[in-house]
């Protein structure tokens, strides 16, 4: 009979504490569902071992860790609220061993039901999530979501361990405390928090430093390097200011008698001091989580939307090919053979040019190459030399486009001086802009069109080789559209490689080697789509995860505060505060407590904009307006969602208080 007795008690307890248990249960269910689905997807034959699969595995790891942290956090809250109940059992004659047994049964019940429910729901919605992912990743053959026994096994295992840990934690809590302490674990008469000026100032410094880094960073490399420094500074700043800064501010408000002894401020300010003492860390958590969600969704979303831009720029034609070497005669020989070969091909929109690019500094109408050991490009232009059959140029004539509007009369490059026939405006057109948006870390872009291959060759030869840096040799570029199957393309690629090898074999002097490439757009597009698609998918998924965490923290905050505040408002009403005034006071406090993290997150986001944008440039994403609007839209949507959560949890709070 004993076993059933405990089981019955455990069930009863769960029912009695449903207000606290249900959110906990739902969280466990949702987390196990997400974990199960993502794991099952990452193990799916179409995903495993590919870019998209690797991305998903990353997600699995994050979900696992967060599941652990949040279930543990929630559980510790629940057990804290239940201590007096368990203390009562103890006083009624149950031994700690018996209580532990009840707790174990409770956990077992919760674990079994929530994990199983999670897996079942996951299996139901798996197909939907799967289709979403397939759509985002791009052209995948239609497939079915399969129920994966491996992932069922792992889900049970992981969440079983998490629940076991919570049960052990709970039991240790019971064993470590005296029954009388259990019975009145909520101590009365809390100490007033001290003003910590040093932490406050440190918080301001951290935040200012983080913001400063974020807005002053000038190029993608620095942005990538400094991103985590800035993030950590801002996180510390946020926590310091939420914990110490808020109390310092409130105490300053209290010092101002004129302000403080006003009906509307009196109760709110003094209550807020205590509220902040208990909740500052929780609010800091919410703020950081909200910022994470916002950054994640807006950046992965922008990248996802921007991927079309990127594809257009990086792979504007079906087939792109290039050949480069230091010697003009080698280049020209290869070009001649390739052109012969391409002549027989059924292609459209064919373009061909000869190009060369270099980092150069403008000094009194002279473009000077950079020093060998120079790594900072911020004074240099990325200069792209090219031939263009559509522009008519004579000897020593060039057409020039500076993207920052500089317009010299003539230019000296190396030993050659050129007359500028066409300047900026006449060259500025859409395609040009698109082509050269990619300028990480340079002062700007310069596009110079020269008469012919020979002119480019002379110019490039007049510059000392050691200044070339990582920039390419002069090269021929070909691009065209052509309807090819995968096999046909492979053949085309092999043919061109063959021509290149054959031609270059005829030259003895190839001291600097040569380079070539033949790319098929479909492959690149697929690769890009897959990368950014699964990136965005993961962003959405993890955001949902963080959202749940945020909701959960808020919910439990409301409950615990509600219980703390009941007594306080009872007294206030007895002393002569009207119901309306009480409501107003509660309302303003909750509003501050809730919307502070959201507003702070918004400010963080604003400052983060430049830094994230700089990092985007490393991906070749340069559409600033698009990113800004995505960020604003995401913030608005998030705020609406946040407001709904606030409404729901505030309802719980009011119910407890009134």
């Amino acid at each position, binding site marked *: 009979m004993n076993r059933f007795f405990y089981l019955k008690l455990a069930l009863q307890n769960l029912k009695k504490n449903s207000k606290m248990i249900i959110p906990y249960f739902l969280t466990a269910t949702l987390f196990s569902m997400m974990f199960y689905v993502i794991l099952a997807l990452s193990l799916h034959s179409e995903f495993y071992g590919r870019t998209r699969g690797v991305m998903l595995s990353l997600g699995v790891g994050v979900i696992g860790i967060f599941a652990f942290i949040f279930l543990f956090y929630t559980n510790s809250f629940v057990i804290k609220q239940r201590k007096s109940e368990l203390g009562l059992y103890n006083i009624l004659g149950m031994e700690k061993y018996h209580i532990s047994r009840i707790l174990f049964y409770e956990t077992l019940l919760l674990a079994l039901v929530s994990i199983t429910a999670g897996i079942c729901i996951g299996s139901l919605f798996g197909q939907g999530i799967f289709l979403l992912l397939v759509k985002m990743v791009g052209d995948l053959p239609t497939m079915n979501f399969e129920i994966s026994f491996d992932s069922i096994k792992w889900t049970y295992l992981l969440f079983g361990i998490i629940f076991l840990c919570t049960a052990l934690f709970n039991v240790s809590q019971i064993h470590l405390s005296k029954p009388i302490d259990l019975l009145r674990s909520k101590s*009365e008469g809390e100490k007033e928090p001290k003003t910590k000026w040093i932490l406050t100032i440190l918080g301001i410094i951290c935040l200012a430093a983080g913001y400063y880094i974020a807005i002053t960073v000038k190029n993608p490399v620095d942005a990538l390097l400094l991103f985590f420094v800035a993030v950590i500074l801002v996180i510390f700043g946020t926590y310091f200011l939420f914990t110490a800064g808020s109390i310092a501010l409130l105490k300053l408000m209290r010092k101002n008698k004129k302000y403080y*002894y006003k009906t509307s401020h009196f109760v709110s300010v003094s209550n807020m001091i205590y509220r902040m003492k208990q909740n500052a860390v929780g609010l800091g958590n919410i703020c950081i989580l909200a910022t994470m969600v916002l950054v994640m969704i807006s950046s992965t979303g922008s990248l996802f939307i921007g991927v079309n831009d990127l594809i257009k720029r990086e792979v504007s034609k079906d087939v792109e090919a290039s050949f480069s070497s230091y010697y003009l005669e080698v280049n020209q020989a290869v070009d001649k053979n390739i052109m012969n070969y391409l002549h027989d091909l059924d292609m459209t929109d064919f373009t061909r040019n000869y190009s060369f690019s270099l980092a150069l500094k403008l000094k009194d109408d002279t473009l000077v190459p950079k020093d060998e050991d120079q790594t900072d490009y911020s004074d240099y232009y990325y200069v792209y030399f090219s031939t263009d059959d559509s522009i008519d140029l004579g000897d020593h004539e060039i057409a020039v486009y500076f993207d920052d509007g500089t317009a010299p009369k003539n230019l000296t490059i190396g030993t050659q001086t050129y007359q500028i026939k066409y300047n900026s405006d006449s060259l500025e057109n859409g395609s040009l802009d698109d082509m050269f948006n990619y300028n990480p870390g340079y002062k700007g872009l310069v596009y110079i069109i020269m008469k012919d291959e020979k002119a480019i060759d002379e110019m490039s030869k007049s510059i000392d080789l050691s200044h070339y840096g990582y920039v390419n040799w002069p090269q021929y570029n070909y691009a065209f559209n052509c309807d090819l199957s995968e096999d046909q393309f492979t053949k085309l690629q092999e043919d061109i490689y063959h021509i290149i090898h054959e031609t270059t074999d005829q030259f003895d002097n190839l001291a600097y080697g040569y380079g070539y490439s033949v790319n098929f757009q479909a492959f690149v597009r697929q690769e890009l789509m897959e990368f950014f698609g699964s990136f965005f998918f993961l962003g959405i998924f993890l955001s949902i995860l963080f959202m749940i965490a945020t909701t959960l923290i808020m919910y439990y905050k409301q409950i615990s505060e509600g219980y703390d505040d009941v007594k*306080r408002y009872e007294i206030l009403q*007895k002393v*002569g505060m009207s119901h309306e005034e009480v409501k107003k006071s509660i309302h303003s406090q909750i509003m501050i407590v809730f919307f502070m993290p959201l507003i702070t997150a918004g400010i963080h986001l604003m400052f983060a904009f430049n830094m994230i944008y700089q990092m985007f440039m490393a991906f070749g994403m340069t559409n600033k307006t698009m990113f800004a609007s995505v960020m604003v839209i995401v913030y608005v949507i998030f705020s609406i969602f946040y407001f709904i959560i606030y409404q729901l949890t505030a309802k719980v709070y009011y119910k407890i208080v009134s």
Partner: protein
Amino acid sequence: MVILEANNLKKVYTTRFGGNHVQALRNVSFSVEEGEYVAIMGESGSGKTTLLNILASLDKPTSGEVLLRGKKLTAISEKEISAFRREHLGFVFQDFNLLDTFSVKDNILLPLVLSRKSVKEMEERLKPVARSLGIEDILAKMPYEISGGQRQRVAVARAIITQPDIVLADEPTGALDSRNTDELLELFNQINEAGQTILMVTHSTKAASHAKRVMFIKDGEVFHQIYRGDQSTAQMYQKISDTLTLIATGEKYE
């Protein structure tokens, strides 16, 4: 002059689904003169807390009426009731009901702040009250830092700082040890002598023996009254305990 008047008060509690009726007050009528110090005595469940709640306008009678300075409490709208309570009534509770988020000073000033008094006026009113209650030194402390006796004195200060028509005290000595009880009762006598009307609900004979008049409530009715007249506190004590014995043994008082 009559300051508080209760006429034919009746209070019936009905359980949620209307099954059980519990009559907390049957028919209570009495009046309190200005400057009086009245103690209402009765055992647990006799209806004395219900009576106090009705007098304090925290609860409404099923029938009957309460008049404070001739004004009907039941006629005051829900909107004005809080302000009315704040300005005309002072409360002292058994468990002090101090707010742990306020300093002693702010606890005392609370009703004044709610009435939107100026900072200058608050300071001016606080000084004499704090001096007469002997709590000047602890004004800056927080409630958890001071003793139970001190807390109750702070609560008294909060009750009288608005210069209310009447102070309603609900078991004010209930949570105090005997030394602090003596001190508090002494204090009540002192403020009563200064002209403050006090109505106290208690089941402590000692507390009641300090009052000028003691009213006994049994089963929701006023059972008996004792006036102090010229009697000493000790004689009062004796009389009260005699009456309590009679009530307990169920005999009718002659």
